[in-house]
């Protein structure tokens, strides 16, 4: 039931399946160590592709979370989401039962959904004809199925939806989940992003769009956000999920609290399908709106988890946007791109980066931007090059921008009882 007064929303559980670790602990330890998750891809024969590198999830065992029969009817992007959600629920100590299930919802974003199953079935269609296409193709492929399957496998019967805003999808999902809890439509939202787009067709398309790094002979140094020698993003895969919970509900059950979500800003460039506006004006407004939503001033921000894709366009315009939105404060804070370690998970990135930002708040430690050797001219902020740093993080922002001109900023704050 919607309530006219706004509720505080805290983060009580985290889950992560990433190219640098398949548990929250491994992921965070990897971020702190500057672990590099990028390598030559093994998912398919990429020898004819312009880009042959990526951040694959390694050693993921879906059967740890899902039965064999159930896992077979899920695309990898859904397997990641269900697994990370189960981790987050366990981490939160949250029990979903008949009485609370309607108050617990799911909001999980994805950029492209089940590309793998689509590509496999298209091949079957061409080889053997329409009558051989799997009855599971459509339910496996559709992007909302990560949210649907997460509900099926956890019992969460509350609000359930999916954001599909390309590389902003995960952050949109966290933002929308935050709104639903804040406004009283749910007590708990299982929110985040997931992606499994390391597939032949995806690599062909992104490479044709000239979006991907071609540093195939040196994968470990290919993803280098804010560095002058960067040449495109490196695809990653995985899922990051947060348990967003109404504060009183969390306190009543004695849950641990990582931090609070306090603001959500969202804009569109209304400019170009894939390129940001040269001055980063849409991104600037997203940051400003998140701060306004949170009732925070620029000088209260300590850390920005950047979108930081390592593409020529993003890193310059995002830097401009941070400076425009935060003014002088931009030079007093830390800004880092964890994509330097994980690669770019498209719709999953907002999920794992919200997890990283929540951990930075909880631990007062900031993950680095690895591979930053010579900063790009104009990229003159403190990007936490190569080594994680102890740093008091009271307020942090996480940026995500997507094809279509979508700009999303989330604002996080250290939890203080008031």
């Amino acid at each position, binding site marked *: 039931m919607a309530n006219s007064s706004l509720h505080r929303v805290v983060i009580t559980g985290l889950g992560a399946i990433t190219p640098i670790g398949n548990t929250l602990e491994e992921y965070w330890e990897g971020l702190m160590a500057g672990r590099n998750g990028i390598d030559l891809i093994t998912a398919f024969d990429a020898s004819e592709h312009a880009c042959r590198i990526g951040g694959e999830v390694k050693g993921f065992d879906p059967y740890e979370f899902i*039965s*064999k*029969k159930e896992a*077979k*009817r899920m695309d990898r992007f859904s397997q990641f989401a269900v697994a990370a959600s189960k981790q987050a629920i366990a981490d939160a100590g949250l029990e979903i039962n008949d009485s609370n299930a309607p108050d617990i919802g799911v909001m999980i974003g994805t950029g492209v959904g089940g590309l793998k199953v689509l590509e496999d079935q298209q091949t079957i269609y061409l080889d*053997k004809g329409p*009558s*051989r296409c*799997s*009855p*599971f193709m459509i*339910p496996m492929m559709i992007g909302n199925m990560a949210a649907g399957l997460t509900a099926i496998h956890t019992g969460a019967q509350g609000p359930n939806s999916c954001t599909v805003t390309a590389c902003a999808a995960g952050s949109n999902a966290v933002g929308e989940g935050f709104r639903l809890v804040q406004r009283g439509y749910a007590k708990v939202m299982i929110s985040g992003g997931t992606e499994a787009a390391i597939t032949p067709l995806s690599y062909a398309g992104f490479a044709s769009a000239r979006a991907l790094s071609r540093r195939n002979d040196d994968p470990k140094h290919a993803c280098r956000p804010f560095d002058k020698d960067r040449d495109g993003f490196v695809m990653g895969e995985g899922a990051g999920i947060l348990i967003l919970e109404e504060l009183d509900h969390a306190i009543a059950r004695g849950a641990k609290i990582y931090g609070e979500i306090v603001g959500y800003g969202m804009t569109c460039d209304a400019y170009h399908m894939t390129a940001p506006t040269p001055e980063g004006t849409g991104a600037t407004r997203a940051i400003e709106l998140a701060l306004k939503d949170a009732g925070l001033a620029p000088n209260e921000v300590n850390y920005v988890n950047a979108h930081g894709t390592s593409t020529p366009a993003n890193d310059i315009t995002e830097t401009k946007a941070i400076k425009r939105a935060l003014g002088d404060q931009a030079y007093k804070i830390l800004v880092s791109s964890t994509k330097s370690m994980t690669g770019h998970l498209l719709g999953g990135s907002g999920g794992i980066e919200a997890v990283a930002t929540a951990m930075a708040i909880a631990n007062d430690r900031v993950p680095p931007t690895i591979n930053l050797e010579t900063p790009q001219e104009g990229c003159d902020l403190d990007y936490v090059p190569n080594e994680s740093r102890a740093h008091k993080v009271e307020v942090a922002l996480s940026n995500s921008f997507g094809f279509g001109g979508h700009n999303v900023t989330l604002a996080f704050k250290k939890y203080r009882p008031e």
Partner: protein
Amino acid sequence: MNQEIFEKIKGIIVEQLDVDADSVAPESNFITDFDADSLDTVELIMAFEEEFDIDIPDEEAEKITTVGEAVEVIDSSTKAS
């Protein structure tokens, strides 16, 4: 019952429905014994068609509820073709 066909589809059933090979008997019912849903059944029939290079019309497929019935339909289809 054609034992050769039975053994072949047993393998397919075990793989697709994740059931024990020992539990697959001619009288086993796909829905009540193996917890198959409508999509599973469609997928199974397609796998049988593929394996035996036959075409099972929908009206035939709809009548199949047990493993033994599947063997019969496949047996008559392979003889017909």
